[in-house]
């Protein structure tokens, strides 16, 4: 029964994908959208069943289908592990997935390839489920690569635009860099443990098996590199902002709520491994903190509404990794969940705005939408407050936990995290003010068509906004349901911070910080009615920020261009040399032949002379030899 249900969970979206691929066009837009949504909704329902089951029994559901890979030392089974962690992930993957599908029915209605869009979305959900429920690293890797593929397909959904295709390609390749790390990590783990099953590895580690600590660290580091790629951490984050080329629901689903959290999922999944490698944990924490700061800094000056949200995502992911690095897995998970709610809501809200403005994404051309798009505005506001970390919104609780943990372990990281949070509050409110306040700065044409989005778009917004509002309850400070729930999958008991004076002080600092950020934004964009300058007028450090620290340019200069240069060198020099060598042999033979040809003079005298010379040399040789 469990097996069948698990298969239903997995294959409902896949069936949706197949049906949409093959019959989507014939079904028509409405039907194809409904089909895709239903497929994911089915998964959601199944997830819910499992979720309740696991809450009741406390035992994970294990499903083994068949042996997939056979290696000399170990086998890899096609198996699923539906435990607390994966079910939690599935809950918001399928839940938010369903909402975004609903949203997309309306959002993508004008696109001629809507059935494909839903097919890809369903495929994505399929792979995401695979990623989450796999019982070993390699099944996770299937999902890992699969979601990367779907991300590629969806970023490049409007494939007529080569810039979008570039972005899609970039996302795929950068992910692949991480994937290589992941693969190497898998190799080392397979080599060390002769298994890739989570349970086996965990048992082996907890039973104190003799494992080379260095290799273990390297494996953990490699896995983290994989996570960096997928979750857009330094130095592999640059694809995520570009990925905003995709349709907005994609940004919401894949590049905010679900796929990019795969890295956090993986690290949490392998927490028993990371626990044993403190140096790698430090690396994770540092990388996370720095990423969150840099991304937030870049986000300060971006003018594209989705770019801001993208950098915000990178920054928030950095915070999550900070938590992971500090060993606070449950807090990272908590932030993943709250972030999924409010960031999905923000993206969908921005999608609603973009939809209303017929594709306009530059905030300099927005403004004053508050009045026209009430629902969008309110939901957006709630989510913004949540992300800024103001109580009692969900973001407050999760972010506060992270900072608190950081404070207890490393003050520097805490400072960095707090700074990033303040910046977050600033740029999010900057975004809010520029978009919804003051007067409309777009064209008359646009202004004329301004409208609130239809119900299919606003409904998910409302649901998500409510979740963003109340999501914090799953892990209230001092009485965390989540910590309790996740305890079975974590090797170490959850951090428990007393609600003492320090805690309240930190909360206060965080709130004040957020308010400062908001205040600065308010004074600049409401009081002074400032509008960000045109691209050409940006100068100084702002320009560096605006150009994202020139990271893309640097990567191009130090990695991509040299590869092309080497390629040219190989093509023009070494290939020619190798080839020339072979042809050269032929040429030498021909040259010798021409020389030999001149010996053949045609003169009998010479021939006879050579004849006699031959005889003489033979005779001489005979006498010499004797």
């Amino acid at each position, binding site marked *: 029964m469990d097996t069948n249900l698990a298969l239903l969970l997995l294959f409902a979206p896949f069936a949706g994908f197949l049906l949409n691929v093959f019959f989507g066009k014939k079904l028509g837009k409405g039907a194809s959208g409904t089909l895709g949504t239903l497929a994911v909704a089915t998964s959601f329902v199944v997830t819910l069943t499992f979720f309740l089951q696991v809450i009741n029994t406390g035992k994970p559901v294990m499903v083994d289908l068949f042996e997939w890979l056979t290696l000399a030392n170990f086998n890899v089974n096609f198996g699923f592990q539906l435990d607390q962690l994966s079910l939690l992930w599935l809950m918001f993957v399928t839940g938010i997935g369903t909402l975004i599908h609903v949203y997309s029915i309306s959002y993508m209605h004008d696109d001629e390839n809507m059935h494909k869009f839903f097919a890809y979305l369903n495929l994505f959900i399929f792979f995401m489920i695979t990623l989450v429920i796999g019982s070993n690293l390699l099944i996770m890797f299937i999902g890992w690569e699969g979601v990367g593929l779907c991300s590629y397909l969806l970023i490049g959904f409007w494939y007529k635009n080569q810039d979008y295709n570039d972005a899609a390609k970039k996302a795929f390749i950068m992910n692949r860099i991480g994937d290589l790390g992941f693969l190497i990590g898998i190799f080392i783990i397979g080599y060390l443990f002769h298994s890739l099953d989570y349970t086996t590895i965990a048992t082996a580690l907890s039973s104190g098996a003799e494992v080379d600590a260095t290799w273990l660290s390297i494996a953990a580091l490699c896995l983290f590199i994989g996570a960096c790629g997928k979750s857009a951490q330094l130095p592999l984050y640059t694809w995520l902002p570009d990925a905003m080329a995709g349709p907005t629901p994609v940004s919401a689903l894949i590049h905010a709520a679900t796929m990019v959290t795969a890295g956090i999922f993986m690290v949490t999944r392998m927490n028993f491994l990371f626990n044993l490698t403190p140096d790698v944990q430090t690396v994770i924490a540092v990388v996370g903190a720095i990423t969150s700061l840099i991304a937030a800094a870049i986000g300060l000056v971006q003018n594209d509404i989705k770019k801001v949200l993208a950098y915000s995502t990178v920054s928030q992911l950095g915070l999550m990794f900070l938590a992971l690095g500090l060993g606070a897995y449950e807090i990272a998970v908590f932030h993943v969940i709250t972030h999924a709610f409010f960031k999905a809501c923000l993206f969908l809200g921005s999608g609603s705005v973009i939809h209303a403005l017929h594709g306009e994404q530059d905030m300099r051309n927005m403004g004053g939408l508050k009045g026209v798009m009430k629902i969008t505005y309110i939901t957006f506001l709630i989510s913004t407050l949540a992300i800024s970390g103001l109580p009692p919104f969900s973001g407050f609780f999760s972010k506060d936990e992270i900072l608190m943990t950081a404070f207890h372990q490393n003050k520097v990281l805490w400072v960095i995290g707090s700074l990033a949070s303040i910046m977050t509050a600033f740029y999010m409110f900057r975004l809010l003010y520029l978009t919804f306040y003051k007067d409309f700065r777009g064209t008359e044409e646009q202004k004329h068509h301004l409208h609130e989005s239809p119900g299919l778009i606003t409904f998910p917004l409302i649901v998500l906004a409510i979740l963003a509002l109340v999501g914090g309850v799953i892990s209230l400070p001092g009485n965390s349901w989540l910590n309790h729930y996740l305890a079975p999958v974590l090797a170490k008991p959850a951090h428990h911070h007393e609600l003492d004076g320090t805690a309240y002080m930190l909360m206060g600092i965080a709130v004040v910080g957020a308010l400062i950020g908001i205040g600065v934004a308010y004074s600049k964009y409401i009081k002074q009615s400032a509008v960000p300058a045109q691209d050409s007028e940006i100068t100084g450090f702002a320009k560096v920020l605006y150009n994202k620290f020139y990271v893309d340019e640097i990567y191009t200069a130090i990695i991509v261009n040299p590869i092309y240069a080497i390629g040219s060198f190989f093509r023009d020099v070494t290939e020619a040399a190798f080839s020339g060598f072979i042809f050269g042999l*032929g040429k030498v*033979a*021909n040259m*010798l*032949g*021409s020389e*030999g*040809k001149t*010996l*053949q003079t*045609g003169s*009998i005298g*010479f*021939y*006879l002379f*050579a*004849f006699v*010379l*031959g*005889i003489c040399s*033979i*005779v001489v*040789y*005979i006498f010499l*030899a*004797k």
Partner: protein
Amino acid sequence: MYTLIAIAGLGIICLIAEIFNLRKAIVPITILGLLGSLALTVPDFGHYYRYFNSMVITNNFSAAFSCLFIILTIFLIALTPDFHKEHKAKLSDFVAIKLFLLTGAIAMVCFGNLAMFFLGIEILSIALYVLAASQPKNLKSNEAGMKYFLMGAFASGFILFGIALIYGATGSFDTSVIYGKILENQPMPAWYFIGIVMMSIGLLFKIAAVPFHFWAPDVYEGSPALTTATMSTLTKVAAIAAFFKLMTSLNLTVPGTYITIISIVSILSMTVGNITALVQTNVKRMLAFSGISHAGFMLMVFFNPIETPGTLLYYTAAYAFAGIAAFAVILSVCGDKGNEEVYNFNGLGKRNPLMAAVLTCSLLSMAGIPIFSGFFAKFFLFNQVLSTGHVAIVIIAILNSIVSVGYYFKLILAMYTKEATSEVQPTPVMYTIVAVLSIALNIAMGLQPDFVLGLLKI
């Protein structure tokens, strides 16, 4: 033995037939007669006969090579009437001379006495001088004949000198007596060895081994194509067979110095032949150089003479059949117009796919590509040589095989990738038959190598 007489008689019958104006019957009669002699030869297998006071000895070796010679001659004679259709009156001469040439060749492999050997080689040579110069009005043919004659006679002098020295050392011309003497009297006088070397040089000249090869390209090019075919197949095979027989019957325990000489000559022949062939544009000339390189390959049999007669037979047969097939195609393409440049073959693949295929096969066989017997020949040869541990020479031979592909493929490329430059000529049926039969024999040998090898099993 009876073969020898029958063939000589056949030659005379040919000449007589001309007198009685039976020109049309000459070729059929000859071919039938040759088939008859083939039947006469076959019973010689498995026996050892001495005739005329050991002047002639037949054994498996002689029988096998005689059969090969007869088959080759049948092919050559079948080609004759079409080739000499301009000179119908001389048909009997051409056929008879070829028959006499065959007599010489057979004498060269079944001699029991150096006198017989000398006569055989001279009969063969003189017949060839005539054939080479058989177009008296053609300066090229004259030149070829002249060159061949002068150098051939010169070489004959050395053979004779060698024979005289051997006679001086042993007091006999009978090979078995000489062999007995060698076993008795060790060491032999110095001039015995010199005699052997002198005879070897004469024979190296006949098989066109470097540095005695200079005549070959010129003579091959200048002679009428059919004569070239004869030279490159029958003569070369007869010479190497005689050489082999001579050396094995006189000098079974070859001293090291001799082997060194042979190996150097072999390496030089292979290399010079192949490399010079690369730059040739005349097909006959190219095949001459290719023949020189094959002579180098064939010389490798001397490394292991006790076990290699089968291999030698196989190699020569494979080479000769491929050569006959190739020349049948060359004749059909170039006729007797005396122009055998490669461009004549342009577009043959379209004009006459069958002949093109035959030529391709024969060239592939010469290049040593399976499943043609040329490949097996090389393989058996290398196998024998390696079993005596001469790795270096095998490597050199391999390198040469690689080079040889270069020029064989030049011709193949011309046939298939270039557009035809001259108009289509009808191909005489006989050419086609000979070409196909010959290449079929070649391939059959490749499929059943055991049959040929088994003829000379020790």
